[in-house]
């Protein structure tokens, strides 16, 4: 995939997420899941990289590597879903933007629907 194409895909994802409120991170490829975890972590307040890793580990039991974290952070920042705050010492905190909150809400709602339906089917099958 060329840089231009991946950029275009991501742009499309962002417009879907930010514009229509649909919220789609699929254009981020392998960074889609870490991005969702980061957005969820930042929903609890601004955090720097290490704090995000610890928070995500506590929240979801997933420990993101530094390369994965910053790959996702750079993409989310470029898409305007998060924004950097002034650096504290050498660490820079990030916070969720309005567009980021919309995308996160849409993603979590979709997961909730999926979980509800799956659990419902499981209950029906075991009843």
């Amino acid at each position, binding site marked *: 995939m060329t*840089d*231009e194409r*991946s*950029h275009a895909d*991501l742009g499309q994802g962002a417009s879907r997420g930010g514009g229509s409120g649909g919220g789609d991170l699929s254009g981020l490829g392998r960074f889609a899941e870490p991005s969702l975890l980061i957005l969820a972590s930042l929903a609890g307040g601004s955090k*720097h*990289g*290490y*704090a995000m*890793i*610890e928070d995500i580990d506590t929240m979801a039991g997933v420990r993101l*590597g*530094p*390369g*994965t*974290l*910053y*790959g996702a*952070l*750079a*993409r989310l*920042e*470029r898409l305007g879903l998060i*924004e*950097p*705050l*002034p*650096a504290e*010492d*050498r*660490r*820079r905190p990030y*916070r969720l933007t309005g567009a980021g909150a919309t995308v996160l809400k849409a993603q979590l709602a979709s997961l909730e629907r999926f979980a509800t339906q799956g659990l419902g089917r499981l209950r029906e099958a075991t009843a």
Partner: protein
Amino acid sequence: MSQGERMSVRMGERADERDASGGITWLVRLYPEAWRARYGEEYAALLVAQPRSLLVLLDVLRGALDAHWHASWLGGGGMYMERRLRRCEVAFFCAFMLFFVGFLPWGRVADPTPTFAAAARLHPILGTLYRGVEVLTAVTLLIVALGGVPVLLASIFGAWRERDWRTLRPFLGAVVLVVVYAAYTLVAMYVVGNRPGMTSTPGATVPVRPIDVVLLAGFLLFTLLGAALGPTLIGFVVVRAHPPLRLLRFALGCAGAALVTMAAVLAGTVAMAVLIQTQAPSLNISQDTDLPTLVVMIGCMAVGEVVGLVAFLRGLRLHPEPVVEQPLAA
């Protein structure tokens, strides 16, 4: 003590432990320059706080690969484009040098002159082709100089203003190389050209001494070394410096024009080689224009043309992209 404070203390302890190792710096250097300019410091702080493990190292390496792969938009698109453009220019220059070194034996095609003149009288196309290729080569050299010299000068003056010795050193190396090469050539020519009996009996066959063979072999080796090392050193200057983007774009345009004339020179050389073999075998007497030499010559020129074309097309694919500056919230 809050969780955040405990975390900061842990980070501080780990920072103290590892700052001395310097390994973090090397890991961050794996990332592209533009990416480092944006994220380098905070990323280094995160790496310092990370527990060391093979998995973390692999994740960092994978992240570096990803950052290079998507460097055009992951932080500093404009810087990325300029850097890529510089590399394309250098790749084209090296390709051109290969082309030019391959072309060097061309001058021997018309040597000895009476033999060539006789063949050209019999086959006028030979003379026309010879002069045409010479003119096209001169035009190619002018075009490459027109595009390349301003970039080189801007790189050198820019590095000099900033006292950037990392950039200036390769240039000084190239200057020393040229001076030593010129001095060696003069000495070799003087010694070989003034061997005993050479001046007293003009036209006579003078035996070649072992020292002459050594000097001529040294000249050949020096020429090959200079042809490889010279463009490399100049390439380092341009890659490390920051010449203006408009000059780089102009040089890329010149490279495109030069590729057209280079293709014409290559076609002319191939035509001349075929004509010599089929129409004028009398010219096939010098070791500089026999079939193996012509094949090597055309091979070098063809590789130079193809590599130059690839570099040009890669440069052409780079579109200007504004550097995204995210406003920092207060």
